[in-house]
């Protein structure tokens, strides 16, 4: 039994990769899977903050890659889900501290330990860190915002996924690509300020696996160290739950992609 490796990537920074990694890993764990989520953004570690375990990082990913600590010592158990583990990045090193052999060793180790899924949170860009995060992937979640520069960067990443991954190099079949549209604001789409789901699908030539609406809950959740998927009342949380279900093979209709209709009271009093 080998672990399925999912990379969360985008090319562009600030589109919601880490938020997505945290919610995706948590969602898979909530579905009963044994999950590890790894922060590949060495030097700018953030995932531990979003996961709310920043004060429990003793050993990190780079320590394991260099053999300075064992996987067991470095995996941080999530406080809400017992089958979810976080492997934090090092804040003091840079991306050159990662090696392909080292990363492979860590991923093999996680497979041996019986993990079902390993979620790799990629750094922005297309350099070494991002390359290593995607290299071993079986699935890729490409996070894209509804604006042209993000779409173009995602296109580049989709091209790299098809050529610069182990699967591509060894001819083991393509990396399964999932397009996730985040920070979607239906009201701004309606007045033409943002690209629509259809626009993005058309430009990139693949269908979206989920649409996460722009939501204040995301920021609040991040600041509190709680992945937004845990907040079942928020639209963003629900949209992430749908997305995880779709990645696991369930069919669910897209929600939150239309402008919400105002209720009677809102129409009377404004709001």
């Amino acid at each position, binding site marked *: 039994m080998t672990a399925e490796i999912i990379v969360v990537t985008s090319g562009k920074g600030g589109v919601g990769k880490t938020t997505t990694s945290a919610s995706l890993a948590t969602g898979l764990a909530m579905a009963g899977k044994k999950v590890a989520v790894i922060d590949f953004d060495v030097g700018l570690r953030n995932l531990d903050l979003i996961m709310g375990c920043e004060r429990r990082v003793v050993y990190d990913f780079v320590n394991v890659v260099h053999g300075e600590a064992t996987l067991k010592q470095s995996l941080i158990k999530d406080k809400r889900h017992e089958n979810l583990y976080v492997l934090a990045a090092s804040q003091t090193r840079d991306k050159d501290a990662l090696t392909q052999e080292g990363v492979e060793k860590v991923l093999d180790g996680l497979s041996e330990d019986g993990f079902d899924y390993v979620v790799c949170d990629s750094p922005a860009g297309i*350099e070494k860190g991002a390359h290593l995060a995607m290299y071993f992937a079986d699935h890729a979640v490409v996070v894209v915002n509804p604006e042209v520069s993000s779409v173009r960067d995602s*296109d580049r990443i989709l*091209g790299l996924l098809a050529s610069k991954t182990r699967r591509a190099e060894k001819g083991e079949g393509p990396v399964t690509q999932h397009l996730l549209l985040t920070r979607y604001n239906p009201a701004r789409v309606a007045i033409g300020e943002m690209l629509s789901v259809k626009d993005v699908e058309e430009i990139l*030539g693949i269908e979206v696996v989920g649409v996460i609406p722009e939501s204040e809950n995301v920021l609040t959740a991040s600041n509190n160290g709680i992945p937004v998927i845990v907040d079942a009342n928020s639209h963003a949380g629900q949209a992430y739950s749908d997305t995880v279900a779709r990645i696991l093979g369930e069919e669910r209709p897209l929600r939150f992609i239309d402008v919400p209709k105002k209720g009677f009271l809102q129409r009377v009093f404004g709001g």
Partner: protein
Amino acid sequence: MNAKMDTSDACDLRFGQVGIACVRVRRVDAASLCDELERRVRAAPQMFSRAAVVLDLSHLLNLPDDGAVDALLEAVRSAGMLPVGLAYGTSETEALAKRMGLPLIAKFRAAYEPISGGQAAVEPAARTEPAAPVQREPILSAPAPGSMQGAQHHASSVRSGQQIYARDRDLIVTGAIANGAEVIADGNIHIYGGLRGRAMAGAQGDEKARIFVSDFRAELVAIAGHYRVFEQIPDDLEGQSVQCWLEGEKLLIAKL
């Protein structure tokens, strides 16, 4: 005292975008290099005769010694081209260039991204030079050169940053070509999808080559080095199926 005061600068010094052909050496064999280049020069003399050439040794497993490099440079010269430098590579290439008294010319484009990905950091940023499509080296090299063969078929999308080159033949693409992607062919190009990137037909100088697109939103189209860039796509062409051809020096585009 100067009788005449000329306050203007004596020269301008800048890095421009000039067309330089790049000869990527696959094996150290001066005689066959000379033959191959002679054939190319004969095929398109206006393009390659006395063309400035950069020798790229990065595809050789071991860097050849100075004598062998001298022989390669001589081979290029006797084929009718003018070697002007070595392509940027490892520190050994740098030392070699210094010994030979040749400039080291940085690689031009994303096409040169190292296969290992290891030394990406030392590569200079990719640059585009729309005016000189013929002198580019493709990422995906076509089968061995020969006479016109059947078309090369590309069944999927071409993503931003990717480049497809059909050497000595037509290219058929059945997917979309994204912004920042390039498709190049020595023959015609047929695109049964959206063209948002660049398409260059007749890359070795065939002025009869044409480009056919079923959904036109191109950044640039070129035929035999004559190109048109589209900062704004004309309303009557956008999203239409069009063909592009050359009439004299003029690149024409019309709805199909």
